[in-house]
């Protein structure tokens, strides 16, 4: 599936081709530690087991403060 992902820390948006199904698998694919982020879709907060859909638009928000 293809996903559009906004990365808050980098303040950039990327199109990602991904063959998994869940948020947890996506984070593993992107090599992102789930401890330091929250994932949202249409302002809804997703848990790690949430199933993703083709063309989903996600936001990966940074938990760690910038200072």
């Amino acid at each position: 599936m293809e996903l559009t992902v906004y990365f808050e820390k980098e303040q950039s948006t990327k199109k990602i081709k991904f063959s998994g199904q869940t948020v947890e698998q996506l984070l593993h694919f992107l090599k992102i530690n789930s401890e330091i982020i929250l994932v949202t879709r249409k302002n809804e907060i997703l848990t790690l087991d949430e199933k993703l859909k083709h063309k989903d638009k996600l936001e990966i928000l940074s938990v760690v403060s910038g200072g």
Partner: protein
Amino acid sequence: MRCLKCQNKAIIELQHGPLCENHFVFYFEDKVYKTFKKYQMLAPQDKICVAVSGGKDSQTVLHLIKKYFLKNRWPAENIFALAIDEGISPYRPSTLADLKKFCKKEKIKLTIVSAQKEFGSTLDKALKKLKNAQLRPCHICGVWRRYLLNKYARKLKATKIITGHNLDDEAQATLMNLFKANVNLAAHLGPVSGVQEDTHFVQRIKPLYFCAEKETKLYSLLQKFPVHFQECPYAEEGYRAHIRNFLNDFEQKYAGTKQGIIKSYLHLLPLLKAKAKEKNSRPQACPRCGEAANAGHCKVCQINELLKNEN
């Protein structure tokens, strides 16, 4: 994933199970209120200075202090916010803009103290001047901020300083002190800082002590606080950043690591405080500015002397 309390859709999975939005907000606020009570952090007659930066932690703690005062029918006008503008561009102006918006909405008085006005230099300018002095940005920033917070909290007659330090900050600080063998400094951490009362210092308390950084971020997001992600340009240079990354990697592999560090530390804290008291090393007044100093001039006057020599 379903909430363990009501079977609604969960938004977070904590160690004891998943929670929906309503139950997470209740759990988070209840945890902070229990921390207030357990450590007797607040009294109705207190004048509260909340040390704020404009980030998620300071907005969360400011919001919850006010909510707690109103809940107990205590005078909420005794709460004020104090921010230090150390002069990091464009990072600080942006967080201060969020903070002004937040304080206006919450009707909380905000005082901003500027390093430029106090010391005649911003942090940005100081770092350029002191590039050969081998002083890390976070060291100068920390020394300036602690000094100005304490000085202005006292000046504004605060009885307590409240900070937004969370479980992650405290687990990091505990490990940093352990790795660097700073046993004396370790005695000054904890939900209520300090070893003994001293007229130089206003007591510091940390209501978010048991709240993980991820929980605070989620709470601030759900409350729609005006927090924009901003990264301090100097943040990655510090020792703390390495400890933070190390701890987060460990937490992902072994859930509960940060809580374990804090629990162990709290068991040891009475011993650390007793040991530090034995030394009876009360701070002296700095001969130049009158603020607290361990020996001779305080750290701020030492840094400012270096700056003067570079002019």
